[in-house]
C-alpha cells in the first residue's frame, strides 16, 4: 500500500469516527442528558447541601411551594444560587439549561436579570437579586422513574416533571418587573413576545371576532395563580374554531412562548397536543387594546383549551402596568405531570 492510500484510509477512518460520535451524541436522549447534569450537580454538593436540595417525589407541600412573590415573602426551599460556590452554581444552571430550550433558558436568565435590575433600582434591596433563585429536586434523577426539577424565585417558578422520555412544564409561572430594562446597552423585555404576539393576534381579528374575544369586565389579577392547581374554569372569549387558519397559527405561535420553554423534544410533544386541541381553545382579552410601541401591553388575556390555561396579567401597582406582569402556564389535567406519573 502506498502512502497516498494510507492517508486516504486514515482520513476515512477519522471521518467515520466523527460520524459515530455525532450519532451517539444525537442518540443520547434529552432525559439522559438532564439526568447526567442533575447527577453532576448533586456531586458538587456537600452532604448538608444535598439534604436541602432533595425532596421525596410525592412531597405535595414542596411541589406547591412556589409563588410570584419575592423570596422573603414566600420562603422557598431547596438551595439558592447565593449559597453555592462558582462551580456549584454553574452546575446548577447547566442542569436548568439542560431541561430547557435555548430560548426558554434565555427567558429565565432575563427574568433573573430583571430582578437584579430591581435590586439596583431599590438601593440594593436584599430581597431581590439574581442569586435569590432556588433549585430543588423531588425524587431521584432517573431515566425511567419520574422525578421533578424545580427552579424559581421572584417572578419565576419552573416545575419540570421528567417521566421517562416525557417532560412536563406545567404549572409554571413567569413574570417580569421591570418588563423593560437595559442590560449592557441592550434593551431587554423578558416577556416582550408574550405581549407583542397577543396584541398582533387581537389586531388580526375583525370587528365581530373582537367583540367576542374582548371581555366586558376588568381582571385585576391571575384567576388561576399559585395554589389554584387542577381547576378548570368555564372558558370565555373567542373560540379558535371561529378563527381563520392564519389566526389559529398566530394563536399557536403565541402559546409556544410558554410551551417551548422546556427542551425541544418535550416541547414538540406538547405543541402537538395543543395543536390537536386548537379548535377547542379560547382566547379572551380584557383591557386596553393598544400598547405603546416597544412596551408591553397593559391588558389581561387568557388562552384556555382542554389541556391548557395561559394567563397574562399586568399588575397595576408601581404605576405603569406595562412594566409589571405575571403569567401562568397550566395544564389543569396534568399538574406536575400527574397524567404520566400516576401509578
Amino acid at each position: 500500500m502506498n502512502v497516498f492510500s494510507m492517508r486516504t484510509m486514515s482520513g476515512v477512518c477519522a471521518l467515520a469516527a466523527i460520524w459515530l460520535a455525532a450519532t451517539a451524541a444525537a442518540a443520547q436522549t434529552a432525559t439522559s442528558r438532564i439526568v447526567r447534569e442533575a447527577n453532576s450537580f448533586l456531586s458538587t454538593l456537600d452532604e448538608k447541601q444535598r439534604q436541602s436540595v432533595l425532596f421525596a417525589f410525592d412531597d405535595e407541600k414542596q411541589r406547591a411551594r412556589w409563588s410570584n412573590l419575592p423570596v422573603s415573602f414566600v420562603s422557598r426551599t431547596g438551595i439558592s444560587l447565593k449559597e453555592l460556590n462558582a462551580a456549584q452554581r454553574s452546575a446548577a444552571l447547566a442542569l436548568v439549561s439542560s431541561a430547557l430550550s435555548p430560548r426558554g433558558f434565555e427567558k429565565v436568565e432575563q427574568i433573573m436579570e430583571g430582578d437584579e435590575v430591581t435590586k439596583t433600582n431599590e438601593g440594593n434591596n436584599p430581597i431581590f437579586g439574581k442569586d435569590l433563585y432556588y433549585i430543588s429536586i423531588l425524587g431521584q434523577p432517573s431515566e425511567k422513574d419520574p422525578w421533578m426539577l424545580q427552579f424559581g424565585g421572584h417572578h419565576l417558578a419552573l416545575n419540570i416533571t421528567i417521566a421517562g422520555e416525557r417532560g412536563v412544564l406545567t404549572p409554571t409561572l413567569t413574570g417580569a418587573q421591570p418588563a423593560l430594562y437595559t442590560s449592557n446597552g441592550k434593551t431587554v423585555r423578558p416577556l416582550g413576545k408574550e405581549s407583542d404576539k397577543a396584541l398582533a393576534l387581537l389586531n388580526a381579528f375583525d370587528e365581530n371576532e373582537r367583540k367576542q374575544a374582548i371581555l366586558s369586565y376588568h381582571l385585576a389579577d391571575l384567576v388561576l395563580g399559585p395554589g389554584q392547581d387542577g381547576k378548570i374554569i368555564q372558558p370565555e372569549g373567542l373560540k379558535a374554531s371561529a378563527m381563520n387558519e392564519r389566526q389559529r397559527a398566530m394563536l399557536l405561535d403565541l402559546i409556544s412562548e410558554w410551551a417551548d420553554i422546556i427542551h425541544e423534544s418535550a416541547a414538540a410533544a406538547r405543541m402537538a397536543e395543543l395543536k390537536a386541541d386548537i379548535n377547542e381553545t379560547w382566547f379572551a382579552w380584557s383591557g386596553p387594546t393598544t400598547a405603546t410601541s416597544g412596551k408591553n401591553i397593559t391588558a389581561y388575556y387568557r388562552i384556555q383549551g382542554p389541556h391548557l390555561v395561559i394567563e397574562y396579567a399586568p399588575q397595576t401597582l408601581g404605576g405603569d402596568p406595562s412594566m409589571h406582569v405575571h403569567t401562568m402556564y397550566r395544564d389543569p389535567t396534568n399538574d406536575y405531570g400527574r397524567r404520566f406519573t400516576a401509578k
Partner: protein
Amino acid sequence: MNTRLIAAAAILLSLGVGASAHRLDQYLQATMISVEKDRVQVVLRLIPGVVVSSAVLASIDSNGDGVISESERWAYAERVLDDVSITLDGNRLTLRLVSVEFPATEEMKQGLGEIQIGFTANLPAGGTNRRLVFENHHQNRIAAYLVNCLVPRDRDIRVIAQNRNEQQSLYQLDYVQAGSGADSASLKGWSTIRGWMGAAGFASIFRLGMRHIAEGTDHLLFLLALLLPAPLLAVGSRWIGFAGARRSLLQIVRVVTAFTIGHSITLAIAALGLVRVPSRPIEVLIAVSILVSAAHAVRPLFPGREAVIAAFFGLIHGLAFATTLGELGLDRWQRVASILGFNLGIETTQLMVIAATMPSLVLLSRTRAYPGLRIGGALFAGCASVGWIVERLLNVHSSVDVIVDGVAHCAVWTAAVMFLISLACGSLPNIRYKQPTATRHPVKAVVGGPNTSFPTIYSKAIIHCERTGRSETTRPTRAICCKLLLDKPTSARYTSLRILGDRES
C-alpha cells in the same frame, strides 16, 4: 388619594419592602363557584394588600388584642357572608358557612397569605333554565373582585352564558340543567338529547335568539328599511301614495317570510358546520344590505322584487346568526335542536318589532307626513350602514353602535309615540292624502283597445301591473290604456291592471 399614598409609603418603609413587591392597596376577593344539581359551592379567597391589611385585620380583630381568635375568624366569615348574596331564578338562597381558613396573623400584616371562606347553598328544584346571580360588595371601596365558575362536573349541567359588571361585583350565570338525575348510564346520552330537544335548552336558546336579534340592531334595521316603502306604490323612479291596506299587508308578509326563509336556510347550513364562512365579509355584506334597502326606501330600485332581495340578504344574515350559535360550543346534535329554538326566538322578536311598527307605518303612509318619515328613516339607516361598512372594512372603531343602540334603547317609546302620531295624523283631514280610489280591471276589460271607456275619468291615475309590480302614471286614464295596448298589443304579461288615483270631480 394622597393620604393613602403617604400611608402606603410609610408602611412600606417600615417593612423595608420595595414598592415593586405586589398588590398593595387593594383587597383582592376571588370567588370560585361550582354548580351542582342540587347545591352550589363557593370558595371565596380574600387577599388584603399590604397597605390595607392593617385596616382589614383591625376589622377582624374585634376585641383589639392583636390576636385573631377562632371565634373572631368565624364572626368575620359570617360578616363577609352578609355582604354577599346568591339568588337562583330571582329567589335569594340561604348561605351556609362550611370552612374558614386564615393565614398566620404575621403573614397577613405583610399583605401575604389568603383568607379562604367556603360556603354552600341548596338549590331548590325548579325549571331546566336557571339563572344564578352572585353579588359581592364586601369592602367595596378597596376591593378588586374576581369571579368565575368551574366547568360543572355534572354533564347534565351546561353553562349558557356568564355576564358580569365591569368591576365583577355582580355575576350572572345562565345554565341549563337537563335530566332528572335518575337515568342509568346507558340512557344518559338520550336523556341529554331529550333534555335539549325538550323544554330544557330550548327555552334558553329561544331566549338567546330573541336577544340576539334584539341586540343585533343591524338585522332589524335592514328589515325595517326594507319595509319602509312597503305600503307604497312605485311609479317609475318614484314612490307615490298609498297602495292600499291589503297590498301593504301582503307586501309586509311577503318580505318578512322571504327574509325568514333566507336566514333559516343559511343558519341551518352554517350552524351544522356544513360551510364555514369568515365573519368579516359577512358583517360587511350585512351593512351593505342595509344600505341597499335604505336606498330603495328613497327611490325604488327593485319595486315588486323586495321579497327576492329580502330572501337573498336573508341568506347572508343567517350566516351571521350562526356565529352566535357557534359560540356556545354545542355538539352537532345539540345544534339541530338549538337551530330551531334560536330561529324561533329570532322570528318572535322580529314579529314583535313588526307588529309594533307596521300599523303606524301603514297609517302614516296615507298622510303627507310619510315621505318625511320614509326619507328620514332611510337616511338614518343609510348613515348607520355606511358607518358599519367603514368600521368593518377598515377594522376601526366608530360611534355607530353607540348611536344606533341609543336609538334602539328607546325603541318601545319611539314605537308608541309613532303610533299615537299616526293615529292623530290619520284623523286630521288636512294632512291626510285625498282618499285614493282603487279600481280593479281585468285586462280583458281594456282589451277593447282605444275605444274602451271607463266609467270615470281620473285626473291622475296609475296603472299598476300586479304581476310585474310595475306601475305607470298617466292622465287621462283612457289614453294610457290605449297606449299600453298599442305598445304591447299581444302582451300576455299583463293579467290585471289597477287604476288608482284621484277621481276627478
